[in-house]
């Protein structure tokens, strides 16, 4: 009965994820500015989320091992950490491809890229530690302690550090409207930094309800510069025109204007801003998250069973010897 249920469960996960993948290319509309490359997000973000779940499960079982000293708990902690490492790696790789399309480079040392790389190295070190210790009991104990320490860094590296950075082009800034990335407020003549771009507000010109700003943009250290003219509607309090940065897919937008003080808040937006505002995209994204979580549970159950059996066989050999 349990075997049959397991088979049905696996079949359901396969069918569910096949449906998600088909929907990724058939149901979701192309994103403005990013076109078809934005579909990578449907895989990229869920893999990162599953990694968070996996590392949490690993930490829970590590703590249980330290409390109960059952080899089964260690097997589960290891299986979860292994799954977490694989999903972190997949998230990094899919992010690199997305980065190449959106930013023009595979790796640009964005704060979130750096923190996920550090997390990868921390958990890779867990497996290096495990493979370096021959005595199973000692290996389990040290790995459990290390896993707990590694878990403490995870929320900081995944959620806190990337949001503390002033200039990140990652989703918390570039994709979710109303996020804490407020852009910068400049007075006429002042210079600021948006992402890796130097911006200077040269002037604000009012034409009825529309305000057009003159913004000089350049990359620090490079001679090339351009004047962009983003627009803002005072009546609807929203942008009217978002010009694209030269040589990039990012756009420059005005988010608020104070004509009396001669200042404007300007921000850099990635193409595809408001990605999940589309209902079809949102549902496929949620389905993908659920599907990858179920896939991880499948991987976790099989792998932890393998590790438990290895322990049982080893114990049996010792008992026979």
């Amino acid at each position: 009965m349990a075997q049959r249920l397991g088979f049905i469960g696996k079949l359901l996960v396969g069918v569910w994820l096949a449906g998600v993948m088909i929907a990724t290319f058939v149901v979701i509309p192309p994103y403005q500015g990013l076109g078809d490359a934005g579909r990578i997000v449907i895989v990229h973000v869920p893999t990162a989320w599953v990694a968070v779940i996996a590392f949490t499960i690993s930490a829970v079982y590590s703590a249980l091992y330290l409390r109960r000293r059952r080899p089964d708990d260690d097997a589960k902690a290891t299986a979860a950490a292994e799954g977490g490492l694989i999903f972190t790696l997949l998230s990094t790789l899919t992010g690199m491809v997305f980065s190449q399309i959106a930013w023009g480079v595979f790796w640009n040392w964005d704060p979130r890229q750096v923190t996920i790389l550090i997390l990868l190295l921390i958990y890779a070190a867990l497996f290096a530690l495990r493979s370096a210790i021959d005595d199973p009991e000692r290996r389990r104990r040290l790995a459990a302690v290390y896993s707990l320490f590694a878990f403490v860094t995870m929320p900081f590296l995944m959620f806190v550090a990337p949001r503390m950075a002033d200039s990140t082009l990652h989703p918390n800034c570039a994709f979710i409207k109303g996020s804490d990335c407020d852009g910068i407020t400049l007075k006429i003549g002042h210079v600021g930094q948006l992402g890796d771009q130097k911006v200077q507000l040269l002037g604000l010109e009012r034409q009825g309800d529309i305000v057009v700003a003159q913004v000089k943009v350049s990359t620090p250290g490079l001679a090339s510069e351009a004047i962009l003219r983003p627009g803002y509607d005072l009546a609807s309090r929203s942008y009217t025109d978002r010009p694209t940065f030269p040589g990039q897919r990012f756009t420059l937008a005005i988010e608020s204007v104070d004509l009396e003080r001669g200042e404007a808040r300007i921000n850099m937006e990635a193409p595809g801003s408001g990605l999940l505002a589309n209902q079809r995209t949102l549902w496929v994204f949620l389905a993908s998250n659920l599907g990858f979580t179920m896939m991880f549970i499948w991987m976790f159950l099989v792998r932890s069973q393998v590790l438990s059996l290895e322990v049982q066989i080893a114990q049996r050999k010792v008992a026979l010897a």
Partner: protein
Amino acid sequence: MSESTSAIYVSMATVLLVWVTIAIYLAQVSAQLRSLQRDLKSDPPGSAQRPEEMTPQPTAATESPSVAADQWSWMAWYAALTYGCVEALGGLQWLRSVPKAVGRWAK
């Protein structure tokens, strides 16, 4: 190849990379599980003990470390495959950016 056609191929290749990785992992782990279950069943009946009856004993160094040698080689293959994919994407982009030659090469 237009930019949007290229982007959909790159997205599909990325999704494929994710599935190939997960499929390889699951296939390898499932094969390992079947092999271990066979090993457990094929033990002589006299020596067979139910796992729950076994008292936890200090195990010697016979238990394999969690990352076995063949898994390291899988990781090396995977790294090579990923590097190849990344290089191929870079190559594709380079091909796109190079203008096509017109006429014959002068000898």
